[in-house]
């Protein structure tokens, strides 16, 4: 994967509403941003589809193509039956010094169309079909053998493009811009809006873009190598191998033949489109994963039931509907906040109470260190430097001669010998030097401000936990009250819904309990397996036949340890860098920046944003704030990893207006300097001054594009021609440039 990638041009030939050949040339990376302006339904999303289709043969926004066939309708209509239609998307990419020309071509035979009647017999509509995944008029056929995907390369001093013989186009494409990261450079509104739901996007960003996943995959392979111990023929050793294997099979839900093991219990609300299996795995991590997914479904279902209260036709229930739904969300949020606060509370006490308990010993030790320092005995390193300096100088501070005088290979200057003796005798104290660092550590951590230490480590986590618990209890109580009210409405339907709702809530609790039980069992197994492995290692080391295997295993274990250590150190480093950079960038874009205190990426990649009272804010961010935070995170990842890929942002400002919009226009050029940024936006988003009116009226009432131009060059394209249902892309100059 290279670090600087730029899209040089896009060429569309009869792709969906884009008629004939439409080309967009992009400026150099340091020549500013590009905005492609188009009305809703004008072809912006299909431009994203075109890029995705060209790179990966996927169209993620297919539902937005509004009846356009994959090949332009006007062009197809112009062909005679039996003709071959051409559609292609070609993208030129610059990757460091190399140029790539990526082109995907679709060939289709046009046959006679079919129409279907709608309503009266005089109205008819073109019948469409799904031909190998492409929506085409009925009767058209894809010619697979002539449809192509090609990547040509031009190196720095070459004049023309040549095929790259190293690998297949798909492999090369994945090297240049991996599909798994596509959602990171082609950012649509939906992706950004739901950015903070779940941990997958954060994990993907940190692990994949920094390439940490490669280390993780290696650790996985090493794990497999460690598992592969054959039967030795010694009963005691083989028995242990078998026990270890049983635990591993439990963990991965495998049967005795190492095939996936399923239970007979069907999945909750099984959906063949989403769930790969109809039944739950029997044990271990796969089962936990399925149960966690199904818990989400259960929550959704409970919410749907709450909504049905309102459609039951009973006035009283209707009035309670919103109250119930809102309260349920509040309860769920407060319940998860309580769990998190509990976790923080225990971690803080377990980490810090030992310091509190050992305070007298710490104070005693520091007093000794201070005394030794006052007497000049510590640190030893300083004394060593001092005596060595005297010896190099050849003169003592008392003016005694310390010059070396070697006779017959022996030092004869007795004064010099005495100093050397003193220096060497002090080496015995070298081990005490660490105590100076120890002193500084405890002074910084605890003794410097003991009250602050107890407040931060004990009082605050306790307060946060109690507050979270009270909040959760309050919402739970309120929820029960609303349920009782609903039941009292007296309708059989309502009673049934309430009953169903209660069932789902109980099921959620049971599922959570089941997850906890399996986690517990896995933990026990892990401890047992560790013991078995140690015992087996000892036995194998004593047995000549298996010594070699034990030796190999030992090596795998050591290598794994090194990899795991490296992985965890790198992960920690990158995580912390991204965390602080995200906050730095985010604050630049925020109007009320004082309210945000900390942005935290935890080791499991869940994230938190805290306010000044250490309350979680992530769930209550406005759409604009959430978008800014996501953009800040993406920008931070790019900054920390140095991996620069083009950023295509679809409808970036749809839900942002006023002050936040102004701040974004000021911050974007700063935090995405020398980056290729392509906006796909509506004219109201980019060109309309009315979207920038601010409450205090002090900030400039200018269109977003003009505000951006205050600090960065902008190039515009306009998608036009939609009145004739064919899209054309033309360069464009907005009206504020008239007088410039």
């Amino acid at each position: 994967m290279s670090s600087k990638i730029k899209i040089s041009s896009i060429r569309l030939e009869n792709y969906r509403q884009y008629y004939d050949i439409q080309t967009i040339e992009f400026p150099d990376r340091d020549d500013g941003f590009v905005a492609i302006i188009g009305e809703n339904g004008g072809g912006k999303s299909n431009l994203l589809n075109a890029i995705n289709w060209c790179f990966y043969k996927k169209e993620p926004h297919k539902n937005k193509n509004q009846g356009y066939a994959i090949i332009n309708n006007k062009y197809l209509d112009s062909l005679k039956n039996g003709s071959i239609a051409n559609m292609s998307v070609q993208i030129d990419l610059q990757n460091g010094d190399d140029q790539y020309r990526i082109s995907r071509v679709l060939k289709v035979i046009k046959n006679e169309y079919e129409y279907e009647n709608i309503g009266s017999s005089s109205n008819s509509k073109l019948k469409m079909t799904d031909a190998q995944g492409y929506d085409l008029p009925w009767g058209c056929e894809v010619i697979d053998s002539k449809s192509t995907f090609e990547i040509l390369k031009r190196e720095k001093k070459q004049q023309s493009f040549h095929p790259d013989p190293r690998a297949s186009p798909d492999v090369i494409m994945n090297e240049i811009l991996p599909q798994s990261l596509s959602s990171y450079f082609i950012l649509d509104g939906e992706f950004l809006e739901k950015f903070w739901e779940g941990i997958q996007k954060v994990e993907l960003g940190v692990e994949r873009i920094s390439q940490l996943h490669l280390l993780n995959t290696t650790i996985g392979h090493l794990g497999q190598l460690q598992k592969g111990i054959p039967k030795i023929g010694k009963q005691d050793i083989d028995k242990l191998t078998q026990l270890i294997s049983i635990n591993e099979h439990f963990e991965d839900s495998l049967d005795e033949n190492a095939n996936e093991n399923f239970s007979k219990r069907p999945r909750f609300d099984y959906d063949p489109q989403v769930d790969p299996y109809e039944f739950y795995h029997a044990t271990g991590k796969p089962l936990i994963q399925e149960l966690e997914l199904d818990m989400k479904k259960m929550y959704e279902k409970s919410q749907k039931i709450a909504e049905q209260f309102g459609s039951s036709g009973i006035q009283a229930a209707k009035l309670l509907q919103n109250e119930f739904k809102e309260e349920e969300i509040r309860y769920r949020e407060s319940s998860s906040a309580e769990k998190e606060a509990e976790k923080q509370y225990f971690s803080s006490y377990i980490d810090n109470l030992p310091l509190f308990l050992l305070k007298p010993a710490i104070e005693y030790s520091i007093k000794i260190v201070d005394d030794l320092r006052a007497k000049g005995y510590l640190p030893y390193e300083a004394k060593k430097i001092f005596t060595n300096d005297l010896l190099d100088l050849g003169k003592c501070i008392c003016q005694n001669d310390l010059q070396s005088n070697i006779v017959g290979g022996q030092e004869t200057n007795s004064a010099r010998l005495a100093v050397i003796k003193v220096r060497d005798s002090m080496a015995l104290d070298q081990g005490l030097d660490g105590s100076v660092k120890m002193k500084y550590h405890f002074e910084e951590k605890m003794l410097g401000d003991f009250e602050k230490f107890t407040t931060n480590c004990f009082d605050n986590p306790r307060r946060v936990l109690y507050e979270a618990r009270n909040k959760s209890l309050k919402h739970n109580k309120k929820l029960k009250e609303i349920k009782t009210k609903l039941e009292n409405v007296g309708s059989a339907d309502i009673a049934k819904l309430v009953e169903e709702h209660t069932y789902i809530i109980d099921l959620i609790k049971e599922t959570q309990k089941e997850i906890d039980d399996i986690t517990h069992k896995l933990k026990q197994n892990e401890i047992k397996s560790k013991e078995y492995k140690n015992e087996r290692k000892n036995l194998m080391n004593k047995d000549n036949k298996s010594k070699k295997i034990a030796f190999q295993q030992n090596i795998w274990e050591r290598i794994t340890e090194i990899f795991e250590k490296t992985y965890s150190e790198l992960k920690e480093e990158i995580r912390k860098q991204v965390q602080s950079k995200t906050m730095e960038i985010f604050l630049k874009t925020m109007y009320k920046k004082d309210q945000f205190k900390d942005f935290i990426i935890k080791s499991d990649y869940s994230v938190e944003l805290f306010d000044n009272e250490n309350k979680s804010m992530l769930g209550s961010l406005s759409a604009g704030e959430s978008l800014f935070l996501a953009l800040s995170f993406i920008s931070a990842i790019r900054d920390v990893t140095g991996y620069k890929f083009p950023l295509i942002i679809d409808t970036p400002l749809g839900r942002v207006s006023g002050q936040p919009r102004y701040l974004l226009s000021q911050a974007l050029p700063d935090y995405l300097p020398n980056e290729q940024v392509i906006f796909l936006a509506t004219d109201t988003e980019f060109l309309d001054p009315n979207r920038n009116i601010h409450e205090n009226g002090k900030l400039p009432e200018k269109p977003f594009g003009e505000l951006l131009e205050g600090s960065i060059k902008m190039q515009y394209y306009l998608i036009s021609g939609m009145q004739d249902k064919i899209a054309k892309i033309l360069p464009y100059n907005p009206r504020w440039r008239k007088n410039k």
Partner: protein
Amino acid sequence: MSEEEIRFPDLNYGENNKKQYEDLIISEWSPFFNHTIWEVFIFCMSYAFAKKLSLTGSPTGTTKGINAKVLSQPTRYLMRTLAIQHYQDIKVIKDSTKVAKICEQYANAGIQELYPRLLNKPSEVPPEQFFIDLQKEIIEHNI
């Protein structure tokens, strides 16, 4: 890293205490649930020190269940301060084996009082109350 750091020995929490340690990290009733053995070890050690428990000797067995690699520098500092106070001599920190041994004895005494205390805690008392009570108790104990 100094030679002494590299040589820091693995720790033995004792065959006699194995079940108790494991129970504490895998049981939901325990405040150490989902934490690690070494954290329990350090906690027990500090607890025994603060409560001035009498040392009953080293834990049994020779299994070095806690790999020294998991002990961070601040954790080792804690262990060293305990050893300095115990021996009333700072030079003890030059001998990490001696530091480890005395910490093992304190942890051994600590777990034997802490574990039954946690196990017999009435179930209606929430797990977090344990730390609050313990902190109060130590403050009163040392007044």
